């Protein structure tokens, strides 16, 4: 049944739309569609963004590995390299700090009426994505493949059962959340 739903090209965009509606609703209720909250996180003064992301990752990590053990889902890890993940990540970070939204939360900011997000930010992201498509062949030859490590996951790299990584990762994230609450952040 899941396979026929997944390959139904008419229904899939509607599934995407509804997951998006839920995502946008939650992001807005979490306060993370606000510039002040996101930049507060980057200034290490307000840890709302971290709390939302860490609890999403804990929930999803346990859930996805459970469902995978039951043969119900497949993983789709992205390939990476130092030239793309690290360098591209830093370029993204510089934009993140200046814009104060990311590609997902900016859509939420637009929905709640943030004009700077709609007029400045979205236009900029579209322009930046266009620049990337333009320079992609050059980047592909030069930096993107520097230090490639493929689409490996940590359990694969360590040659360990996935729960040997999931459990410590979840415990570390939980410990960080407790510590942040203890510090009153």
């Amino acid at each position: 049944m899941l396979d026929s739903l997944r390959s139904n090209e008419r229904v899939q965009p509607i599934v995407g739309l509804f997951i998006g509606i839920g995502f946008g609703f939650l992001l807005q209720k979490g306060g993370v569609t606000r510039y002040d909250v996101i930049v507060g996180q980057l200034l290490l003064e307000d840890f709302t963004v971290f709390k939302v992301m860490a609890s999403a990752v804990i929930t999803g990590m346990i859930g996805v590995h459970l469902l995978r053990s039951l043969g119900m889902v497949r993983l789709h890890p992205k390939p990476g390299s130092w030239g793309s993940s690290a360098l591209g990540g830093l370029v993204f970070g510089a934009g993140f700090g200046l814009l104060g939204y990311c590609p997902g939360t900016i859509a939420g900011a637009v929905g709640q009426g943030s004009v700077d997000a709609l007029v400045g930010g979205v236009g900029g992201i579209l322009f930046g994505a266009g620049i990337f498509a333009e320079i992609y062949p050059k980047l592909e030859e030069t930096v993107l493949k520097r230090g490639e490590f493929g689409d490996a996951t940590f359990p694969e790299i360590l040659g360990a059962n996935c729960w040997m990584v999931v459990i410590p990762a979840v415990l570390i994230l939980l410990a960080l959340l407790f510590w942040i609450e203890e510090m009153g952040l």
Partner: protein
Amino acid sequence: MLEYLKMDLWSPYLVGVGIGVLNLFAFLLSDKPIGCSTAYSRTSGMIERVFRGSKVDEKAYYRKFEPVVDWEVMLVAGIVLGSFLSSAISGEFRPELVPALWADQFGPDPVTRIAAAFVGGVLLGLGARWAGGCTSGHGISGTLQLAASSWLAVICFFLGGVATAMILFGAGV
């Protein structure tokens, strides 16, 4: 129930768990991790096609990510709608030109803010495709799959973001 929907804010933990569950639904129903940034690539390609015609489709990057309305474009449209619903129900929907924190540091001029948002957006859009994902695709969906690329990317997103914000706001100097 209605009381909850009308609240301005929910606990960040409740919101996070909800987003984690949505990710599971994306894997189950669509065999996809949630991500947002390719939607901007595809949309950018569709806009460029209006001006330059079908030549756009020949670009190597658009052969990989065809400029069409796909699942992820619908997801991003859904985010706009979902956030509108949430803010409209709670009465938090309001047009805002300049965020308060920005105005405190750089003044209330909307042109300055929008120009900065545009430049930041260019770097964000460029960097997201460069790194192959954003705060959702790498930051949540990728890290929860324990992908090495995603953990490296998300650490760099926040290193770059924290450094830039600290410089802009003169914190810790």
